[in-house]
């Protein structure tokens, strides 16, 4: 099982007008079975539906939301239940209202965006600051860099992370090197730049609506890559990204846009970039992941405790590039075992970097090979997605392999 197939079945199909054409087709078969459609899971013990409302990695009460140790000292705020896209929307509104030189643009952002992240912002901030661009990723990125290097905060959106690649030259050769090549000039840098994009598998996204391209950034100096796991985290990290002075690629797991719901402080707050978070302490194995996979890891860790008596420490990397070596090293030095989980392919994935660094830094303490549970080295095939994206069974198996080594 993967989270995707258990989010979407709960959603209703589009209303009759859109379905009319489908209904009219005579067929002896039922509707085709997308990977996100509901299946009988009664025999399953590990790959059970993920219920975000049960996740301890999300705050379900105002007091737990406000108890976050990374919130500023004395931070007082009301909270509101938000899903991920609402929290992103809230963060964008916060950035736009506190920074008069900030702008949002991209394909179809004016009417609210295809994932609703920019809803209402045009009304609130005007068409000069929230606007559609022509359909050109390299143009959006180049335009954003020009704005940023003129002292503006540019918040461009790439509609899907899969379509980031036409803009790769602009990000890699321009945004990431601008400050360095200008000798650290105060204005001539593209630090006020957050490139937002939906990322990750969604159950039926196929080759070009599922990708997790964060690994491509590992060889890119001068850019940070952030992937949040939930609404409150997304808001704090996104606001921090807009104010940090470095270009940030902000990847939003699209499966969580409506799936992950929690209490989010309505006030203005930042969470630290470049810092991992230990979301569950443990002593036997360190389990490292980010974004959507955290919930799979949570269930796998729970299963490991129940079935194997293994106490798993779970780390959310949050910033995947450059990632927090200190927190990871400290954890593995304590547990002696390390499992890394990500959706993206194994080769060239962030897991390679984490694995190599952990091996260098924790060599004498490692009691088993570092285990990587990742997507296979294939593109994302539509109907086979459940066999590609790491699920609870695979992560559980990775933990088991490591502790039994």
């Amino acid at each position, binding site marked *: 099982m993967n989270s995707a197939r258990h989010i*979407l079945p709960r*959603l209703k*199909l*589009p*209303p009759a*007008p*859109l379905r009319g054409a489908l209904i009219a087709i005579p067929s002896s078969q039922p509707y085709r079975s997308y990977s*996100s459609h509901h299946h009988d899971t009664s025999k399953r013990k590990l790959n059970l539906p993920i219920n975000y409302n049960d996740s301890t990695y999300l705050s379900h009460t105002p007091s737990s939301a406000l108890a976050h140790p990374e919130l500023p000292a004395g931070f007082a705020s009301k909270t509101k239940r938000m899903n991920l896209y609402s929290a992103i929307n809230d963060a964008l509104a916060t950035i736009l209202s506190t920074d008069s030189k900030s*702008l949002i643009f991209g394909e*179809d952002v*004016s*009417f*609210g*965006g295809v*994932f609703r992240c920019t*809803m*209402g912002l*045009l*009304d609130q901030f005007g068409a*000069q600051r929230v606007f559609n*661009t022509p359909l*050109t990723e*390299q*143009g*959006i*990125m*180049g*335009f954003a*860099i*020009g*704005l940023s*290097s*003129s*002292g*503006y905060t*540019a918040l461009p959106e790439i509609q899907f992370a899969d379509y980031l690649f*036409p803009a790769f*030259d*602009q990000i890699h*050769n*321009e945004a990431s090197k601008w*400050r*360095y*090549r*200008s*000798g*650290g*000039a*105060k204005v*001539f840098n593209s630090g006020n730049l957050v490139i937002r994009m939906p990322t990750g598998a969604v*159950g*039926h*996204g196929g080759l070009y*609506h599922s990708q997790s391209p964060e690994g491509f950034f590992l060889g890119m*100096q001068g850019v*940070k890559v952030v992937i949040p796991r939930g609404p409150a985290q997304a808001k704090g990290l996104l606001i921090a990204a807009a104010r940090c*002075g470095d270009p940030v690629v902000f990847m939003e797991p699209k499966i969580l*846009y*409506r799936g992950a719901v929690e209490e989010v402080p309505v006030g203005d707050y930042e969470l630290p970039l470049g810092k991992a978070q230990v979301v569950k302490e443990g002593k036997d194995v360190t389990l490292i992941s980010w974004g959507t996979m955290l919930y799979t890891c949570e269930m796998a860790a729970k299963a490991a405790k129940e079935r194997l008596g293994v106490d798993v420490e779970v780390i959310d990397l949050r910033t995947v590039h*450059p990632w927090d070596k200190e927190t990871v090293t400290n954890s593995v030095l304590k547990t002696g075992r390390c499992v890394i989980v990500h959706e993206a392919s194994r080769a060239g994935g962030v897991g390679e970097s984490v694995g190599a660094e952990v091996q260098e830094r924790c060599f004498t303490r490692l009691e088993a090979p570092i285990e990587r549970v990742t997507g296979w080295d294939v593109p994302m095939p539509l109907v086979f997605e459940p066999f590609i994206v790491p699920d609870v069974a695979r992560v559980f198996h990775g933990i088991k392999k490591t502790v039994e080594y």
Partner: protein
Amino acid sequence: MRVPISRSLCALSRSQPSLCPQSRRALLSSPGVRSLSSRFTTPRSLSYTATRSLSSTASRNGGIRQAPDSDSVSFPGAVKSKFTHKLEFHRPQDMPAMNTYRYINAEGVVVDTERKLDIDKNMARKMYQDMVRTSIMDLIMYDSQRQGRISFYMVSAGEEGIAVGSAAALEAEDVLYSQYREQGALMYRGYTLDEFMSQLFASKDDYGKGRNMPVHYMSEKLHLHPISSTLATQIPHAVGAAYAMKMENAQSVVACYFGEGAASEGDFHAALNIAATRDCPVVFICRNNGYAISTPTLEQYKGDGIASRGIGYGIETIRVDGNDIMAVYAVTKAARELASKNQKPVLIEAMSYRVSHHSTSDDSFAYRAKVDVEEWKRRDNPITRFRKWLEAKEWWSDDEEVAFRTQARKDVLTAFAKAEKAKKPPLGDIFTDVFAEMTPELKEQRAQLKAILEEYPDEYELGEFDNSRL
């Protein structure tokens, strides 16, 4: 291809049973939208957006419906297009080539007698002197590369008129984005010989801290954004910068230079399209010098140069004789005013001939005849042409020519010697400015390099650097 897929995605991603946003948008922008939209309850903000887009469509198209008796099309994608019953292709070969504007002819005689240019004696002499100074610096630096004293160089021979003429027409607050062959523009704006040399020798005074190849200049003071080697990437940057200016309600514009080869990059297309749709005050200046390294324009494009494309993007466009500095000045001045006053982009295609090799890493006689180059040098080049005009007005003389050239050569060599002797930037600059704050990784790596340098000091030329401590 992606729209239908993402449409299905968002349809499935919506928790509320209603139209997916993209279908809704498609419906809203199609005929009959009013009756359809009334059947769905739309959030207030969305209906606001829809109304906005409807009204703008309506104002642009004069209504979104196709009147049955109309003689022209009202499809949203092409307005005011007349119907025809003749099946005819528009053939590029039937279109006349766009004209090339000249102010003075090859003999330095004014041919646009109707236009008075605001170039007085001082300004004209400065324009001439900056062209000559640029060409002298080019020659000396080209030779110095040949002697191995700098690593690389690119001369601008034959194109000094485009750079200096356009720079003279810009205002001090206007922002520049350059490709790499526009040193004349910097010269005119006041980039000093010391600044040129610090960059070329990557000395400790270089603004880029010795990190960039030679000729990759920058200047915060002169609003010249740092040059990068990647072709055409600066074109959408210029558009973003122009949008920033628009936001500031500044009267300034952005000038963006690029060659005709760079105009084949996707960034050119993206930039001109965004500049037009977002109404950005940017002046695009294309230097069409006939070659992109070895590739002649015949292999670069099939249309009528770069200028003919401007119209396709809805951008006011002009072609100018780049060997005529007066024409370049006149055209840039007018383009600047258009861009600033109307808050929209303008495209200038300046025609010239790349007299020089592409760079010090190129021997252009491998792909073109030496005699052609000599012919261009002798028959028509911006410096001699402008000198004829100046001399006819008695604003310049042979004596002044000799004296100026001697002095300019001396000035360049003085700055040259100073920069060549200067220390390189401190070694600490290897690791700074990658991020706003140095990351733990970079601190670790700096410590690792430090340990290596301490253990193997004789393996490195540490004495060259202003500070070799890490």
